[in-house]
């Protein structure tokens, strides 16, 4: 077994957003400033060449983690560091976005869209080399070299996602942050894009940080999973362990929502409630108002993310006491 080489280390990262009303409204209506802690104290490492997935309901902060890692947002607290890449420089990060319709500029030709990172970062010396690289990238992602002359509206959603992947690859990154790359696509197209991403991982030795709410997609793609709830990681485990033996009650709830093809009419135990507002999170464990096994302690003390059975880390009082 080779040594564990981290591509990405996220250490105790928090992100607080200021969602206050405009200054004048605050003064007139005498309202205080409002802050939302979208991500709190999140720590994880991603091993080089693997796929690390973050799952959770919408609003749990997983996209914020993605944007923190790429540097689109600045962290409020904590550190994000990258391993060293093949050439000794720090690993480069790129991002694949969710919506293939807004992630490419509709007024640019596909060739210019893919060439933009090469031109901005001056990765090729001449225009001829740049265009050769663009053609190569288009073929890598399964499009034709001639497509460089076309405009985005001439492509389907899946094809645009391929363009988006080609653009991300153009800057020669080693870590790709994928923010729900398939959730805007048809199921048949999803499979094509996921297979393309796996093939690229094998061919180019990429590391993925994969953000999704679709558990079946995550199971297909990843090696390691973190489950997020209200800005915190509640469970973190190797993929098969999480799917076969989830330990946190929220992970169990999430898995119970996957439709079962063997038993389509099975009764799913009714789970009441919605995630609480991150503006006003509950005391103690954020999940305790919905938790079937909540104890008195859960509403008072926030559980820590501790090692549990297998290679998992779980943040739950009930599990820790086992």
């Amino acid at each position, binding site marked *: 077994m080779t040594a564990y080489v981290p591509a990405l280390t996220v250490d105790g990262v928090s992100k607080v957003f200021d969602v206050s009303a405009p200054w004048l409204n605050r003064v007139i209506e005498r309202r205080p400033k409002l802050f939302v802690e979208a991500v709190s104290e999140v720590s994880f490492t991603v091993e080089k060449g693997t796929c690390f997935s973050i799952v959770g309901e919408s609003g749990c902060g997983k996209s914020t983690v993605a944007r923190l890692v790429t540097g*689109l947002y600045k962290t409020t607290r904590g550190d994000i560091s990258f391993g060293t890449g093949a050439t000794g420089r720090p690993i480069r990060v790129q*991002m694949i976005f969710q*919506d293939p319709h807004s992630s490419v*500029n509709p*007024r640019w030709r596909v060739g210019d869209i893919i060439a*933009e990172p090469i031109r*901005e970062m001056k990765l090729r010396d001449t225009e001829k080399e740049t265009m050769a690289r663009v053609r190569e990238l288009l073929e890598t992602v399964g499009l034709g070299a001639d497509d460089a*002359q076309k405009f985005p509206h001439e492509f389907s959603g899946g094809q645009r996602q391929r363009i988006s992947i080609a653009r991300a690859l153009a800057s020669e990154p080693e870590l790709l942050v994928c923010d729900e790359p398939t959730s805007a696509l048809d199921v048949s197209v999803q499979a094509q894009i996921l297979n393309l991403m796996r093939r690229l991982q094998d061919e180019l030795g990429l590391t993925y940080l994969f953000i999704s709410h679709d558990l079946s997609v995550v199971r297909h793609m990843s090696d390691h999973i973190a489950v997020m709830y209200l800005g915190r990681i509640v469970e973190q485990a190797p993929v098969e362990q999480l799917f076969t033996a989830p330990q946190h009650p929220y992970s169990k709830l999430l898995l119970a929502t996957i439709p079962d093809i063997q038993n389509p009419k099975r009764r799913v135990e009714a789970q009441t409630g919605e995630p609480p507002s991150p503006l006003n999170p509950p005391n103690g464990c954020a999940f305790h108002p919905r938790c079937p096994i909540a104890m008195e302690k859960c509403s008072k003390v926030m559980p820590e993310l501790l090692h549990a059975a297998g290679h998992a880390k779980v943040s739950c009082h009930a599990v820790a006491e086992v």
Partner: protein
Amino acid sequence: MTDQTDTKVPSRAERFFDSDLWWSFKSHKSAVGAAIVLALVILTAFLAPLLSPQNPYDLAALELWNAELPPIWMEGGQMPYLLGTDVQGRDILSGILYGTRISIIIGIASVAVSLVVGIGLGLMAGYYGGWIDNVLMRIGDVLLSIPIVLVAILVSSVAQQFLSPAWREAGVAAVLVMAIAMYSWVQYARVVRAQTMVERRKEYVMASRLVGTPARRLMLKHILPNTLTPIFVAATLNFGLAILIEATLSFLGVGMPPNQPSLGTLIRVGNQYLFSGSWWIVLFPSIQLCILVVAVNMLGDWLRDALNPKLR
């Protein structure tokens, strides 16, 4: 194989004549009519030195015994004064052609100046937000709360005081352009700002930020092309408005001087002789002004509908 790929790439002109916009234009009778009328007006205005029977700026060419001649089809009309002459013996038709040229140039120049200012400030306000946005937009609000004619009168009369007499005549057109632009940039800035605030959150802008594209290039190459459609419509309609404002100011006497008349100046001068029976001095420039502005507005209206995806 290479031939095939070459023929696949249409040129800009081919793409234009193949576009929905061109198709919509061809099937829109009033738009085609307005475009033809506008083309004729602009062409005759800019060919004025070739077409007009007299140079209205050349005071030596004016003969006082030709003053207040009626149009050619009336009793007393004379060649070559097709539409008659004014009180100084100046040919009305020549005055109209030269005046239209001045009106169009001032219209285009003021739209150009306000486009540059409005787009630049709108992009900055929308992209950076915060206090930059607040300051720029509040300045715009204040400017819009003052009637444009007052702003223009103020600007041009103050400028007249500061310009030396030698510059006054040459500078008056530039002052008019500035006065009109000072008012109309706000509109463009608002449109661009609103659109920029939408676009800058889109994922293609984030993707570009990730590779380190500087803010200026993000604004000009990514965001600006996606805000141009509404700007194009606003600019067309504002061109008509700018001509009207210029005519208003000239009519009020703070615009072009009588020896360099624009359409508004011609109407003002002619207005004084309306009740003495020389109706042609004021009527024909007015008709020309109407034709010009109506044609521009019809084109603008068609463009607004054609570029509105909800009305297709």
